[in-house]
């Protein structure tokens, strides 16, 4: 079952979907539901709940990308999913085809990877959260830090250091969302999040070299 992500003008034509506030409410309930059954569970239980949330976000990110073909890179781009003979079969990433072996990551123009991350910061964030990411930084070696100074899923909670411990629960789904969207765009990644003071948070995207 897919959790629906709400947003205005998703994709071409500006088709209006459900009101944005519904996703915020649904997300809050999802977190509450996962923690309600065992509030005192140790780190093992917590990690399981976090990974359930991340997995849900991943699937939504994939689906968003799949249902918006305008988001996929043009087929001439090396990032476009293409089948090449002799490639190993896709294993844990059925929707993402590996890069063709004759093109190593290093030979790709650095700009292309940055373009994809900029797309996440602008188009994806606008579609899901009705705002853009506030800043994007990189070490030029496949690690990107996306910063949102007023993340909508944290805004209603608190401002400052209160609930800092709880914040990761509210970021797991979005980490998955980023990872899933990147996957549909042909990029394998690891996404983590950190919060110094609500409602600002940072998402760290580390591109996985295949």
């Amino acid at each position, binding site marked *: 079952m897919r959790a629906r992500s709400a947003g205005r003008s998703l994709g071409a034509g500006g088709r209006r979907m*459900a*009101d944005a506030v519904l996703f915020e409410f649904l997300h809050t309930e999802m977190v509450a539901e996962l923690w309600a059954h065992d509030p005192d569970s140790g780190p093992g239980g917590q990690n399981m709940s976090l990974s359930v949330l991340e997995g849900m976000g991943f699937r939504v990110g994939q689906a968003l990308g799949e249902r918006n073909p305008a988001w996929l890179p043009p087929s001439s781009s090396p990032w476009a999913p293409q089948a090449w003979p002799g490639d190993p079969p896709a294993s844990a990433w059925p929707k993402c085809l590996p890069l063709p072996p004759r093109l190593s990551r290093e030979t790709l123009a650095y700009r292309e990877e940055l373009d994809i991350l900029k797309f996440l910061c602008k188009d994806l964030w606008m579609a899901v959260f009705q705002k853009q990411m506030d800043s994007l930084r990189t070490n030029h070696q496949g690690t990107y830090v996306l910063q949102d100074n007023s993340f909508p899923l944290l805004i209603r909670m608190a401002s400052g250091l209160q609930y800092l411990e709880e914040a990761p629960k509210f970021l797991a789904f979005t980490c998955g969302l980023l990872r899933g969207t990147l996957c549909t765009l042909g990029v394998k990644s690891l996404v983590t999040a950190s919060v110094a003071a609500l409602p600002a948070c940072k998402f760290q995207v580390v591109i996985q070299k295949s």
Partner: protein
Amino acid sequence: MGYGIGTRLVEDFLARSCVGRCHSYSEITDIIAQVAFKMYLGITPSVTCNNSSRNEFSLILDKNPLVEFVEELPAGRSSLCYCNLLCGIIRGALEMVHLAADVTFLQDRLKGDSVTEIGITFLKKPEEKKYRRKK
């Protein structure tokens, strides 16, 4: 989960919709269908009243955005009430304005019925004459 969402959603609804006081269950159901559903989901279910004591109503959903990407229920889950969240939301919202109601799916297109129908039964309180129906 829907109940939890409904208890919070109603505040957002009241803040944004500026509806006045309602004086009957029928008026309340009309507002749910014509204002709330429209505001949040962009659809307007039609309303029918199912009994003469005017406390049982049905919302007939012609379109349901929640199932837009669902072709059929997964195998082994044929009894799944996919949109039960909606019933909880309505129930939670009504309870926050001091109205008790049973809300269930009477028909479900995903289960093969011809329409999707949500039934709302307002439960009478013992001293209902003493309370004004608030919205």
